[in-house]
């Protein structure tokens, strides 16, 4: 069976220690996390996690059921990629010379990114989008050996339509 990537939306109690419980479960049972994001929801009693993980159907099922057993986990949903808006955020600092500047600016425009810091030798670029788009931009920057440093946030995922994860 294939180790495909999947998206989990998880509603948890907004208590300290919840992140350790969830991440501990993954490491203890040998499941891989590609990314994990957690933040408070509109209701301060709850936090919402978006977890991108990898595994076959067996692992996928086990992760959902094992997560559901945790007392502070209120809801777990395997999100359908076709009905989900998935976004990541990238901040990337590039080395810049007068010669490379036009090329970079053009790339930023193509990727619908934003230049958020600019000086003679470097630039910080902000890009939001699907994980594959961010990876494509990183590849471009890597090829030209421009990366000074980068920081990529875990993916956020929300279902399309009226339904929400909490109810």
């Amino acid at each position, binding site marked *: 069976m294939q180790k495909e990537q999947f998206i989990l939306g998880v509603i948890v109690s907004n208590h300290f*220690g919840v992140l*350790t*419980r969830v991440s*501990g479960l993954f490491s*203890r049972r040998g499941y891989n996390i590609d990314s994990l994001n957690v933040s408070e929801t509109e209701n301060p009693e709850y936090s919402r996690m978006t977890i991108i993980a990898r595994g076959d159907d*067996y692992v996928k*099922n*086990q992760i959902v*059921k*094992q997560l*559901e*057993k*945790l*007392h*502070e986990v209120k809801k777990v949903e395997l999100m359908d990629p076709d009905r989900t808006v998935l976004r990541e955020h990238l901040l990337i600092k590039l080395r810049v010379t007068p010669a490379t500047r036009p090329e970079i600016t053009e790339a930023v425009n193509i990727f619908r990114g934003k230049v958020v810091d600019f000086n003679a030798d470097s630039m910080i670029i902000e890009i939001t989008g699907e994980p594959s788009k961010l990876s494509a931009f990183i590849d471009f920057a890597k090829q030209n050996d421009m990366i000074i440093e980068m920081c990529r946030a875990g993916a956020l995922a929300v279902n399309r339509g009226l339904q929400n994860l909490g109810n």
Partner: protein
Amino acid sequence: MKMNGAQIIVETLIELGCDCVFGYPGGAVLNIYDELYKSSDRIRHVISAHEQGAAHAADGYARASGRPGVVIATSGPGATNLVTGIATAYLDSSPLVAITGNVALPLLGKDSFQEVDIMGVTMPITKHNYIVKDVRDLAGIIREAFAIAQSGRPGPVLIDIPKDVQAAECEYTPSGSTQKFSPPKPDEANIDRAVELINSAKKPYIYCGGGVVAADAGDQVRKLAVLTDAVIGLSMMGLSAVSSEYDFCLGMAGMHGRYASTKAKSEADLIIGVGVRFSDRATGKKSRYTQNAKFIHIDIDAAEIDKNIPANIGLVGDVREILKRITAKLSPTQRPEWKKEVAKMIEDEIFFYPKGQEMHPKAIIERVQRHTSDDTVIVTDVGQHQMWCAQYYRFRKPRTLLTSGGLGTMGFGLGAAVGGCFARGGERTVLFTGDGSFGMNLTELATAVSNNLPIVIIIMNNGVLGMVRQWQKLFYGGRYSNTTLGRKTDFVKLAEAFGARAARVESAAGLDRSLEAAFAADRPFVIDCKIDMDENVLPMIPAGGSIDDIIVK
């Protein structure tokens, strides 16, 4: 009423029906012990010799009674000494509530004296755990902890309470009701599919685990078996779930299971797993079963379905309720061919029995059983003696076997026997142990003696770590690395030094005489039974093997 945290702890425990707790005092739980002192007429505290013993005692109390067992320990080393006990309860789904003290809130996180992040340490081995930082949350948390420990698949819960929270005051309101979370109910269509599968089976085998004991569903299992001519096999945790008096209850299956039980499981065309997790020790080579059989898996824990064995039908909920719904839809069906086939296996099993020697462990167990009743709680440690008990002791009533199955904790037995004895109002309790296991936590003899507990302790003493030695003999070329103990410990003198009575026996006649005395004693009685160090637990199926790989001598 205004109370401090320590008072609230004691009041809430009493409110939840807890009349006996186990533990060991220390700096960070002084306030709790002060309140226990003042309330000693309403709640009994049993002090152990070591916190691990207290944890096993609370676990044993829970297993023997079905009610949560409570253990209290101080911060730091007190708390870490509970860890093996908590893990033991976790692996065997036992409702243990552990209460630990911790340093005061301003000292947390500063590597203070006797400070350990016990919540972090026990996260992977508890159903849930807490640190209480506000006294106003305390009563609610204790109530919730009891509910979590007992609901669904039971398990341990730890509550860590900093010392200043125990001293802080707030309003306490008693609560009338004990909450419990209700399990899911499978829909009718799934029950119907299970019934259909049962009706179409030719060789049904009901495989019961600890979940049948927890749900008190033995009578329903037996009803299903009688209705369908199914045979019953048990995991080690399932022993005692169904009385061994029932002819087609074949006993334990698996690595050291009885021949007929393991054989029938391999030949079955339908395995109905009830409250059982198909652990590696009980299942071995999975493909050997899945090639013949379809699976119905009934469990209260959804995560068990499809975890170790893919099920054709998974039913999640209270196993007793589900079995009732299934049997209501079945009409009696006879399967004489299958019964005949299994009867032959039972007949063949006699060839696997050891013969002759009067001090063979099987003979010892049978001699002990002459003195026990159906209600006697039998406790074991871990190793060869444990397997012999599982094979040869005839359990007749649920919750009469306390044994560490999942974790395999050597040293579990004596503490668990103390707790089991308290749970049964001081009735005579029997502990089977080995010289290795007994050596691990024998200090609890002090606890048993102080409380005049009539525990009969049978040490199957072969002078070696028998189970490890058996593997060394079979799989490591007979290189007995560090398993030939050759200790000079005199268990009779040792027991007497603790204030217990004791005898050493080397013959059947001597054993009978000592058993007479032991079962009449008003305190713990240790019987040091010499057995042969080369006696193996047989039959044996090597790890990952199947009935085709069975070792018989």
